[in-house]
């Protein structure tokens, strides 16, 4: 394994030359020594990073001495040119060519290449091997000049043939520096000796952001050709400021992007699946990657379901004449009461007013697995591990009770406990105290009473006595006062203390909440009216029925998970089916109609094109006009010059927009979430060009040639789809026109 830390040599020679100062080496072999790699990398990164920062500071200070202003930031064009020229000079000296420079904007690539017109990197012998192309398109001529001097450009605006030429030459080694976008990184077998990053930020369609680790790895991994180079070099240009260390760290050592499902339900897919008798769309959805996480548990769920089913067969009903009247309803009432109370308690206790009240000295009633209905006083509170508030409280309890409050045990028992109104806990023997930690859900009532205490003294006292040395020390005064108070309160108010009223004391005015509190109160009152608690064997019966009900609930839940209803994509599927029914593509039995069969033939924008066909919008137009009109469904660039259109095209454009409006209104009516505006999906920028192309003229727009080519290729496919649709319908006129349009478009360079 060869690792060369070139930082020293680099920075010394670089420091004076340019501002691009970051160099580090990549390991040649797979990083099975990952931690070593990271150590070494971070060391070398840090090392060269600090040198880079120093060099930059030096520069900046020198410049400010001369001009008295801040150093230049960002890509001043001349600055850029110098940067590149000096960079390439340096690389040439160090014999680090060929190099791929990743720039993330096509404009910048063209600029960079223009700036390097003066460079000539190929030797004489290599020149003779490059041949020019036949056609005299301006782009071709420009490329020819560049290639002769060993400079290449590669991005989506370039004609496909030229892209292939550049790739071939690069593979042969005749292109010394290639300015490319990141799609080049995905190409097979295109490694270079060096990789240069123009910047480490890019625009991803919505905003500017840093490169993701996965993208960085992919592009940087291009450096170093197997069998030809011993090491590969990656250079990041710092044209403005040197990027932050943390940013670089995250980019280079971060986790690559995780795999996410891109499964989308399309109308075309649904229609095709409905045609075949055997496949159900739900089955298809189930098998997609997006449902993977829920489906991988299917086997487990099935086994659990079978077990529960077996258990359910052997439950016996409760045979008690007192209880059988309303035991089930009582259980349900308890359960609802409990969940509602829990829910509301959570809201109350996170309310800012409540938090203010839950300070040291507030008396509360605690109810958890160890302490039932016990009075306690709040000492202090802090944030627990899951961002929930944990309160330290002092409670009274029996002496010599060895209960340990165990917050980490999670939820208390899953079975619903009967809500029997019990009195406050009173210690039978001598009163003792305990310091416990409670969560919000354990506090049943926040009373209106407070006690004056000194929380810190109490805590210290108790903690001190927990140490074995001080175990037998007498109880501190603060603690004993507090305990006495609690005991007195308990004796005085045995049925319980009134709690804070959420509306009056906490000022909760939200209508929904007030309603919920009221229903909680009513539930509480109704619980006293049930008969079953009077039964002598009530607890037994209650536990038994809670077991049974829990089994039944689990069974239902598992059945739901295993069924179709739990698919996340199911609601969208239903909505789409409704849209299709409304537009008459399928009938009420989900059988595919003629319109649906036509839509199956079309690969993108099925609804729009089918509607166009059936509205007879295309049959009367000339083939060139048809081609121009359909270009709007394949063209995707947003900002480009407005086309000049003839009358029929303008009318056609309006018609398309009208149909789009109709479809999007329908989709919205059924509740589908559509990204953005449906009408804006159609871009009319290329209509004129396509129209004229079908009649042989170019030069009408500023959209780059490569994009035009791609658009026309996709348009050709769309025209073919519509031609097949015409065959299904049985209209020979449309069929013929589509054929003509297709042949008019596909010629020459395509």
């Amino acid at each position: 394994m060869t690792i060369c830390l070139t930082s020293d040599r680099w920075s010394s020679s670089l420091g004076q030359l340019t501002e691009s100062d970051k160099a580090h080496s990549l390991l040649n072999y797979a990083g099975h020594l990952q931690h070593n790699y990271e150590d070494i990398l971070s060391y070398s990164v840090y090392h060269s990073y600090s040198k880079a920062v120093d060099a930059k500071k030096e520069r900046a200070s020198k410049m400010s001495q001369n001009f008295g202003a801040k150093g230049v930031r960002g890509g001043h064009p001349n600055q850029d040119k110098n940067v590149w020229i000096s960079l390439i000079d340096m690389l040439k000296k160090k014999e680090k060519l060929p190099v791929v420079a990743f720039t993330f904007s096509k404009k910048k690539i063209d600029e960079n290449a223009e700036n390097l017109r003066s460079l000539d990197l190929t030797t004489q012998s290599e020149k003779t091997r490059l041949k020019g192309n036949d056609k005299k398109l301006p782009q071709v001529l420009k490329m020819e000049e560049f290639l002769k001097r060993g400079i290449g450009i590669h991005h989506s605006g370039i004609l496909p043939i030229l892209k292939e030429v550049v790739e071939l030459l690069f593979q042969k080694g005749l292109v010394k520096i290639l300015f490319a976008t990141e799609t080049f990184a995905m190409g097979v077998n295109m490694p270079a000796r060096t990789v240069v990053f123009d910047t480490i930020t890019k625009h991803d369609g919505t905003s500017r952001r840093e490169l993701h680790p996965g993208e960085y790895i992919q592009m940087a991994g291009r450096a170093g050709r197997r069998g030809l180079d011993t090491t590969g070099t990656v250079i990041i240009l710092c044209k403005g400021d040197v990027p932050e260390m943390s940013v670089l760290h995250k980019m280079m050592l971060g986790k690559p992007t995780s795999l996410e499902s891109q499964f989308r339900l399309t109308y075309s897919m649904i229609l095709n699946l409905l045609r075949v008798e055997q496949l159900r769309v739900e089955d298809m959805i189930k098998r997609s990657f997006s449902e993977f996480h829920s489906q991988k548990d299917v086997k487990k769920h099935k086994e659990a379901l079978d077990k529960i089913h077996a258990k359910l067969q052997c439950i016996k009903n409760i045979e008690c004449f007192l209880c059988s009247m309303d035991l089930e309803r009582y259980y349900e009432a308890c359960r609802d009461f409990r969940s509602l109370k829990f829910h509301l308690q959570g809201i109350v206790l996170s309310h800012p007013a409540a938090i203010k009240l839950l300070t040291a000295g507030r008396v509360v009633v605690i109810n958890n697995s160890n302490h039932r209905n016990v009075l306690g006083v709040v000492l202090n509170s802090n944030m627990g591990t899951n961002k929930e508030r944990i309160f330290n409280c002092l409670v009274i309890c029996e002496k010599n009770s060895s209960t340990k409050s165990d917050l980490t045990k999670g939820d208390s028992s899953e079975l619903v406990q009967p809500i029997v109104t019990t009195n406050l806990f009173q210690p039978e023997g001598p009163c003792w105290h305990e310091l416990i930690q409670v969560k919000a859900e354990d506090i049943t009532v926040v009373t209106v009473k407070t006690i004056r205490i000194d929380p810190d003294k109490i805590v210290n006292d108790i903690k001190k006595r927990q140490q074995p040395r001080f175990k037998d020390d007498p109880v501190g005064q603060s603690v004993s006062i507090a305990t006495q108070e609690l005991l007195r309160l308990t004796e005085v108010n045995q049925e319980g203390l009134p709690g804070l009223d959420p509306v009056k004391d906490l000022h909760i005015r939200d209508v929904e909440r007030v309603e919920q509190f009221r229903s909680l109160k009513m539930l509480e009152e109704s619980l006293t009216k049930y008969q079953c608690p009077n039964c002598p064997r009530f607890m037994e019966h209650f536990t038994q029925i809670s077991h049974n009900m829990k089994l039944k609930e689990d069974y239902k839940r598992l059945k739901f998970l295993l069924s179709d209803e739990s698919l996340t994509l199911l609601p969208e599927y239903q909505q789409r089916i409704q849209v299709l029914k409304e537009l008459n593509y399928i009938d009420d039995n989900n059988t595919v109609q003629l319109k649906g069969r036509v839509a199956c033939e079309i690969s993108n924008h099925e609804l729009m094109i089918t509607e166009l066909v059936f509205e007879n919008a295309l049959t009367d137009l000339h083939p060139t006009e048809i081609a121009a009109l359909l270009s709007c469904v394949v063209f995707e660039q947003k900002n480009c010059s407005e086309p000049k259109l003839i009358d029929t095209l303008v009318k056609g454009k309006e018609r398309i927009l009208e149909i789009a409006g109709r479809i999007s209104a329908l989709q919205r009516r059924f509740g589908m979430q559509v990204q953005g505006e449906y009408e804006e999906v159609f871009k009319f920028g290329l209509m004129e060009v396509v129209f004229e192309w079908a009649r042989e003229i170019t030069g009408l727009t500023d959209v780059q040639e490569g994009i035009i080519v791609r658009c026309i290729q996709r348009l050709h496919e769309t025209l073919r789809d519509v031609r097949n649709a015409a065959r299904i319908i049985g209209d020979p006129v449309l069929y013929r026109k589509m054929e003509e349009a297709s042949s008019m478009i596909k010629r020459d360079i395509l």
Partner: protein
Amino acid sequence: MSVDIRIAGARESTKQLDSEEISSLVTPGDVITTDTGFMRGHGTYMEDDQLKASVAGVVERVNKLICVKPLKTRYNGEVGDVVIGRILEVGQRRWKVDTHSKLDSVLMLSSVNLPGGELILLELLLLLDNVTQAEVQSVFADGSLSLHTRSLKYGKLGQGVVVHLSPSLIKRRKTHFHSLPCGASIILGNNGYIWICPTGNEMEDKTGGYEQNLEPVQRADREVISRLRNCVLALAEHKMMLYDTSVLYTYEASLKFPNI
């Protein structure tokens, strides 16, 4: 007693040739409409700016498309239809199947589920005159169909009865394979061929029909099958649409007459 008699000539013509109105039942040569805004589909042709029907049938209109669905026609295949066909020829790596369509359909060897995954001689799998159930995989440009039996439900059919009908009488539904409670199963192929057979063992389904149940069918079953066949033919005579419930009701109604 007075009787109303009208002379044939005084009878009012019930066919109005209004340009706005589109009548629903047409015969060849009838003018459907004179409105030029419509696209023409199957079963129509243009003559002097008039849209005329070329077959006898029902006019269907979808947005701006007009087509005529004929009553009696050969089967026009669609992808996904279930058909029943008879083997006409055994070829190189394919079978030619008769499905009552304009051209013979083709069943490629690659589209067949081979039992046990082995390649046996074509002759052993499907012989001449065997009847098989298949699904339409695709339609060639000239209208001929390519079939496949890629599921265990499809394959060679054992003992049963084939009934020939017009394809327009079969209603397009979700499933075409019905197991009737009277002890027989019926397969309504979209191409107008119906297959009636006793509800055999479940095993036959799972092997794609390559293991045949050749034991003689019971007399009771035979009676049920014949009765069903007669019901189906009766429905066809009266041009009623055929689907599982209609056949079942007819069968139950026919039980009242023991001598069908």
